[in-house]
């Protein structure tokens, strides 16, 4: 059983009531992975939202339909309490990146998409709070990606200048 004390430290569950956290607790289960184990890939059906409980998780661009030089590029590393796999809750419901265990072992929370989505719809106030926090997660991930691209574009332009 995942403790409420841990849940209230999770980035997208901050400031929720104990009752709301208890309801979320019922959607969670814990899983453990070893270094380089794949937690999910871009090709899988996104059935869960994930949270790093212990250890570190890395998110990679892992598409097989691009040349070797473009694969396995790390977008970000996530420490404890950070959320990943947000595509499971956001249209068009496709994982954008693959997730791997980056520490010797890692323990992650698997939040079942179906039951969690139902919970958010039934309790609109909870849904609003969680989606507001999730938007911050998605937006921050987008900012990271965009920063990298701008850096690359800027370097290309300045090199030609």
């Amino acid at each position, binding site marked *: 059983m995942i403790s409420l004390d841990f849940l209230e430290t999770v980035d997208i569950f901050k400031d929720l009531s104990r009752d709301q956290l208890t309801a979320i607790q019922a959607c969670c289960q814990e899983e453990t992975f070893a270094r380089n184990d794949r937690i999910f890939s871009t090709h899988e059906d996104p059935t869960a939202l994930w949270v790093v409980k212990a250890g570190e998780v890395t998110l990679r661009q892992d598409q097989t339909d691009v040349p*070797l030089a473009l694969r396995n590029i790390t977008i970000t590393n996530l420490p404890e309490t950070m959320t990943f796999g947000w595509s499971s809750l956001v249209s068009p419901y496709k994982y954008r990146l693959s997730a791997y265990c980056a520490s010797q072992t890692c323990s992650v929370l698997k939040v079942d998409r179906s039951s969690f989505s139902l919970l958010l719809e039934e309790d609109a106030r909870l849904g609003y709070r969680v989606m507001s926090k*999730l938007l911050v997660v*998605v*937006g921050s991930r987008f900012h990271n*990606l965009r920063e990298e691209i701008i850096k690359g*574009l800027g*370097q290309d*332009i300045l090199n030609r200048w």
Partner: protein
Amino acid sequence: MVDIDFLRKVGIFKGLEDDQLALILENCQEKEFPKGGLLFKEGQEAHCIWLVVDGEVDLRFDLPARPTTSKETTLNTETTSNTLGWSAFVPPYRYVLSAYCTSESCKVAQLEKADLLTLFEEDPGMGYSVMSNLAGVVSTRFHKMQQATPDKYAITTIVIHMATCGIVAGAREVMTALMEEMAITGRKDIHIRSSGCIGKCATEPNVTVEIEGAEPVIYQEMTPDKMRHVFQQHVLKGDIATEYLL
């Protein structure tokens, strides 16, 4: 003209009822910009979101000491019913790009973040829908960016081992062939460097190809022709030239 019909077409308001759209409409402030007009600038506090009502808006980034007027600094072009400025809901709440009108003129509707948050607190169902849709917009752009610019992530280094033993065996000629191939491709993401001996003098010239995420690959007894072949097959297509491996 911003009306309920227009708001129905805006992606972030998908699923809202007409009475909810009417409340949003009350808070829309229409503005018009001429071609080249600046809607907002990178680094400014993001206190509102923008809906493109008519025309086109480019999202661009700035480079030091250069005007942001070039197409090459454009990341996205937004058209009718698209949303700009979701940074208003994401820390540090500052626009990370500048927005310019690129059509003859453009009409936009501005929505203050504070007004929207008040509406969402009063009607959390509306807040849930809009935040979900907004996350979907960002997700779609995330994917578009991944697909459109994968080459910005290709980190490839080719190392020519040019100690005395390598040079005597022909490493300079190998380097020349590589530079010629690089000039033809125009790829900026591939880095070339020279380094010392790797302790395999008998197999010089040696060349190492390092592609991020994969183990380094060392080639032996390279010639200009072999270098061209490795460049085309391994570096550009991703297939290791096994016949030349050390």
